[in-house]
């Protein structure tokens, strides 16, 4: 009976050995399956992004010949939704942004710029907005573009229930074509950020009456869809009839789907793609000295936050959150978790890029372990009765690292943390993230700060994950969101920063940087904080 087992010896020894080698190889080559494709909900938390390998290499090789022409090959995660009303991930927005046009757009510095609308004016105390539209715009199917299309699009965006835009545009009383190329919006109350709202990711103009928006790709945009192979790639060809003279400068754009960051970086190094946006800091650092590549890092308004539920023990005592903030060494976190890309956080969603709203003097107190211990003691926690909590975090980006560092830093103040790393789909699934006491959530970059306040911190807000309810805060947020007086708005935002630093339920350790790398055969690449909004119209092929 033993003899039979015995003959298997070599095989048995060999298989584990092979597996170990396989693990090593997988680890080296397959790195960084950091982030998951589209999120459950568009605006929710941050960095969606890249995941596991999909574009096989032989396909990528097939592509390498076409780099002789002005074709830009971009690595992106696969797209799931293509109807602009439902898009959310970078890749979905990137495709839509080049097939369709926004009414108004945002530049890399978060300024409002014209696109289909050439000029506009507000009247009636900020309740009426009138837009003049560009001339000579045609749809990809050859038909004429008109103001009716814009009115129809926004009517659809605000009246389709269950979409993020239904909430966003609830304030629009009416939208009408008041001329062939003139659209008028009427609001029920003033909104200081209405123009930013109009440039929302979903607000791409469709042809009036479009019913199959998820498949027909009939836009006015700079590129037309030439071929779409789900799970593989989408190929775009320049729109010869584009209404802006001299754009686009590329002949073709191929968006090749990758699920894995490391695989897309390998493809970039191997010359099978030309551009990769969004990647873990570690991979970005490894690209910095590579010949033939230009690396780009830009600061953004996106951030990770740690929040404590404020409506029940232990967070209902504000001293607890204050103690956790005091026990945190933000600079160390910024250096080790973000490798110093981005900016140090200030415990508010209003970061340094919101120049006029951001007050650099208002910063959280520096690390003070004794102070934290004293505050916790006041709140009833000491060595005999330590504060014990579970810190929930999605498994993407630097968040597990952030959790590991916080656990260690807070332990010096006697706080005992268990970490629970969860797949992003589990963390955000069934709104579990809104229920847990202590969690880390990533929030993507937005061009204006009001979004964060209205969805995350105002009493009863949809994604008020900390269950924060503070009358003074609500008033300030309301003022900031509705006043047409710039200085009053700046004042309100500074008040909000002060308030959040003093008693807010959130700890913002850093603001992310957006990282990208492009082949040096292209120029005029200007990445945006939300990578999917990056504009390829000006990118030019210059050859090697």
């Amino acid at each position: 009976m033993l003899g039979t087992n015995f003959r298997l010896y070599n095989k048995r020894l060999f298989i584990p050995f092979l597996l170990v080698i396989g693990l090593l190889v997988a680890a080296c080559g397959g790195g960084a399956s950091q982030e998951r494709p589209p999120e459950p909900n568009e605006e929710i938390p941050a960095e969606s992004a890249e995941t596991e390998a999909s574009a096989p290499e032989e396909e990528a090789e097939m592509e390498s010949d076409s780099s002789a022409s002005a074709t830009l090959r971009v690595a992106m995660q696969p797209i799931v939704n293509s109807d602009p009303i439902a898009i959310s991930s970078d890749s979905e927005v990137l495709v839509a942004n080049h097939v369709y046009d926004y009414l108004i757009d945002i530049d890399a510095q978060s300024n409002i710029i014209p696109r289909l609308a050439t000029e506009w004016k507000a009247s009636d105390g900020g309740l009426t907005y009138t837009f003049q539209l560009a001339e000579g715009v045609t749809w990809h199917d050859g038909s004429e573009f008109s103001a009716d299309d814009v009115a129809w699009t926004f009517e659809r965006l605000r009246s389709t229930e269950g979409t993020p835009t239904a909430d966003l545009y609830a304030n629009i009383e009416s939208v009408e074509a008041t001329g062939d190329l003139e659209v008028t919006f009427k609001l029920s109350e003033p909104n200081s950020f209405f123009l930013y709202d109009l440039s929302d990711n979903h607000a791409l103009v469709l042809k009036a009456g479009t019913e199959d928006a998820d498949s027909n790709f009939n836009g006015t945009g700079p590129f037309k869809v030439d071929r779409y192979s789900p799970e593989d790639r989408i190929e775009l060809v320049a729109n010869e009839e584009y209404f802006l003279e001299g754009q686009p400068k590329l002949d073709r754009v191929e968006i090749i789907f990758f699920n894995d960051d490391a695989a897309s970086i390998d493809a970039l190094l191997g010359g099978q793609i030309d551009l990769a946006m969004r990647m873990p800091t570690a991979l970005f650092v490894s690209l910095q000295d590579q010949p033939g590549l230009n690396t780009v890092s830009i600061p953004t308004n996106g951030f990770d936050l740690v929040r404590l539920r404020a409506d029940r023990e232990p967070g209902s005592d504000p001293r607890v959150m204050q103690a956790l903030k005091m026990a945190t060494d933000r600079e160390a976190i910024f250096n080790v978790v973000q490798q110093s890309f981005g900016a140090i956080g200030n415990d508010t969603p209003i970061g340094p890029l919101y120049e006029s709203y951001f007050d650099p003097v208002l910063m959280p107190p520096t690390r003070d372990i004794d102070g934290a211990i004293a505050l916790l003691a006041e709140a009833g926690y000491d060595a005999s009765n330590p504060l014990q909590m579970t810190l929930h975090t999605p498994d993407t980006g630097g968040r597990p690292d952030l959790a590991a560092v916080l656990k260690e830093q807070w332990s010096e103040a006697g706080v005992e943390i268990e970490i629970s790393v969860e797949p992003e789909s589990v963390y955000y699934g069934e709104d579990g993230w809104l229920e847990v006491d202590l969690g880390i959530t990533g929030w993507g970059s937005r061009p204006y700060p009001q979004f964060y306040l209205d969805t995350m911190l105002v009493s009863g807000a949809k994604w008020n994950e900390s269950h924060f309810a503070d009358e003074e805060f609500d008033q300030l947020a309301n003022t900031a969101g509705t006043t047409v007086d710039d200085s009053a708005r700046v004042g309100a935002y500074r008040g909000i920063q002060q308030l959040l630093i003093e008693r807010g339920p959130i700890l913002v350790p850093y603001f992310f940087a957006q990282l990208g790398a492009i082949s040096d055969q292209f120029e005029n690449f200007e990445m945006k904080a939300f990578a999917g909004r990056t504009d390829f119209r000006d990118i030019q092929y210059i050859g090697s």
Partner: protein
Amino acid sequence: MPVAPISAIFSISDRNKPMAASEANATIENAAPNRVRRFFSAFRHLFDRPVTAFGTTVFLLFVLLALVGPSIAPYGANEQVYADARQAPSVEHWFGTDNLGRDVFSRVLYGARVVLTQAGLGTILAVICGTFLGLVTGYRSGWLDEITMRLFDSLLALPALLLALLLLGTVGQSQNAVLIVIVVVYTPIVARVARSVVLSVRTKGFVEAAQLQGESQRWILFREILPSVMPALTVEGALRFSYAIFLVASLGFLGVGVQPPSPNWGLMVSEARVYASQLPWALFFPAAAIALLVIGVNLMADGVKNTLQSSD
């Protein structure tokens, strides 16, 4: 009679009951000291061949590390020295430091305890459960045997890792869940091995003698049959142990059943893989530890087989 001498090595001697069937049948009726000597001589065989000696040494070394590692580790498993983050191996940090400034050498030492405890305990439990089920189903046969074996067949049809992931998805993720997973994944395999030996032994004369003598079923199972199953079980247990190490590391790599900042080697590899080009040492050393331990245990398991065969 090849079975009895081997069983003599492993059977727990119980000399209070005179005229036990096994003893009556056993070709060797030696005194207890002889058995003890045989046991140790079997143990000595683990160092006979260089390859086996290597495997055994590696295994014992890791066991030693698991026992004393934490007290000899220069840093804490989760101690973060930010100023030293991302350092290559040096005199201060033998295996370098990871992205958070943790000493990789210390973490590998701490990890030995994590991995060996989980894999070892899980294997022992699986061997106990599997042996019991194998003995009972093999001896009793009938519908109990049929049902149990078909159930095990269906469990064996699933790849171990897939089954583990399924289970962790259902019972939730914790250290104990990993133990349960190891038990559930390996019990059927051990039970099959035990059962096959039982089937071949159950018709042997000494078992029939015991039956005729009116011994209780428990006595027959654990005193007559179990000793014959022990050699196969020992080999199987050693092999399962090496696979369990790998399973624990794999689950850690996949990030299930273990939470950071645990120094589980698999989790360390997983955390370090994104830094593969920046910090290769943070990836290499925990992976090498897994490889070395798995290979060591396999070589040792092979030695156990050799020993048992040479005793035949």
